[in-house]
């Protein structure tokens, strides 16, 4: 027992306490949509470079999941959402400081593995019986956009196009990056994801089929400071995201400029 106490005193307690002494920097906590991983990692790095006293901690996840975390009191200063629906629900609950600002756009595309096991060469192939399609779950922004797109595509490809694609759906993924990874592995034949999800690394394994202009979906990404937290610092980060430097980093990852 004595030894255990000595161990705690010598090792555990200083280890727990030390970050407080060693890091005089403030930490900015950001919750960001999974689709933003690469762009926001780069943005965080650039922001830290010009703000030496700040450390940016980003947690990525499904927008809907992050919004639920904020509702339940998660410690976060900034929320970068993949759609306006979830941001608005936070605004309605008074959890956001000020107005959310749009900072990026993204288009919905059909993604197929380069190995193309389902021989999907165009959108119409996604409705061919036996083709394995994966989509986002309805609560996930990309899943909601997919359902809108399918309804619009039915005007071009026949009234039952959406229903036939839905019949091919083998999984409703909870996270758009997991969806893209499964396509990259060749486990499904096609899936609807954001253009930016086909990252430079993933592009070696994936092909992209654009949606026709009539069904084009542009996801709008809002960002906001969380009420009652480090709002001044959060605003500085948000301004940086919207600055030409931040926009350049987003464009590099195939995001569209803020609509």
């Amino acid at each position, binding site marked *: 027992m004595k030894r255990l106490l000595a161990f705690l005193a010598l090792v555990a307690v200083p280890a727990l306490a030390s970050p407080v002494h060693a890091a005089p920097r403030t930490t900015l906590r950001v919750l960001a949509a999974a689709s933003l991983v690469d762009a926001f990692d780069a943005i965080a790095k650039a922001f830290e470079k010009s703000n030496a006293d700040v450390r940016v901690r980003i947690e990525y996840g499904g927008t809907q999941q992050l*919004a639920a975390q904020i509702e339940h009191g998660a410690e976060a200063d900034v929320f970068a959402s993949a759609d306006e629906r979830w941001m608005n629900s936070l605004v309605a609950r008074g959890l956001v400081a000020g107005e959310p600002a749009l900072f990026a756009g993204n288009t919905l595309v059909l993604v197929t593995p380069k190995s193309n096991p389902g021989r999907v060469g165009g959108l119409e192939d996604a409705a061919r019986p036996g083709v394995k399609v994966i989509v986002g779950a309805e609560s996930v922004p990309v899943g909601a956009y997919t359902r809108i797109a399918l309804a619009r595509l039915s005007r071009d490809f026949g009234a039952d196009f959406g229903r036939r694609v839905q019949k091919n759906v*083998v999984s409703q993924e*909870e996270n758009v990056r997991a969806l893209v990874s499964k396509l990259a592995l060749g486990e499904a034949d096609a899936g609807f994801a954001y253009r930016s999800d086909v990252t430079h690394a993933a592009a070696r394994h994936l092909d992209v089929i654009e949606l026709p202009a009539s069904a084009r979906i542009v996801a709008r990404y809002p960002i906001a400071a969380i009420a009652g937290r480090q709002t001044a610092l959060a605003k500085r980060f948000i301004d940086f995201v919207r600055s030409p430097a931040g926009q350049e980093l987003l464009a590099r990852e195939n995001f569209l400029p803020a609509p």
Partner: protein
Amino acid sequence: MRVLAVLASAVLALLLSLPLAALFLRRPPAEILQRLADPLVLDALRLSLVTSLAATVAAIVLGLPAAYLLATRRFRGKRVVELLVQLPMVLPPTVSGFALLLALGRAGLAGRALEAFGVTLPFTTLGVIVAQTFMAVPFFVLAARSGFEQVDVRYREAAATLRADEVRTALTVMLPLALPAIVAGGTMACARALGEFGATITFAGNMPGLTQTMPLAVYLALQTDLDAAIALSVVLVALAIGLLAGVHAAGGILLGARTRRA
């Protein structure tokens, strides 16, 4: 010192019981019962029961011989086998699911061979069962092995002097004596399969009625339909409590029967 021990135990008891109480007290019981009729809840419940029972059977069929051999034999590489059997217990379930995908996915290491036989695992109910078995089998093997190990070696020796061969000894002496541990292990495996989330969603995906088990349904409902999430959670907790109580009861009954016989 004793005060500290009591204090620590009290904190532990609170930590363990408070979340459960919160879950049960959040909504009136009648409302929870009503939500159980929800097709989303019913589909997930049915699928979970079917898959976790199938995974339990698979864990017993595959795990019983291994548990027996580990308990009664010494062989080269035993340590490696032990490690292998325990690994799924400590790996993050997502890693297990990802590894399963790389191995048994249709583009995976052995997946092409499976595909040739017409077996597809990702995005299928069978895939859910495979993922659950992978995660649950260590619990069964550990329990059954220790059950076999606790059988007094003299029983085996006595059977040998009566010229019973090993298979007969295993089936008529070892198995009955280790039965409480085997039943307990099977029940633990079932409980683990029932609660499996990470490996399932990674390997088998999420499709209502097909691969969306209760834990997956809870996770997704948590983001959209809090009341459904609560109802599903309450059912899961009740099932888990039932299974654990079953472990204890089965152990007690079987042990009692054995002492009476002896």
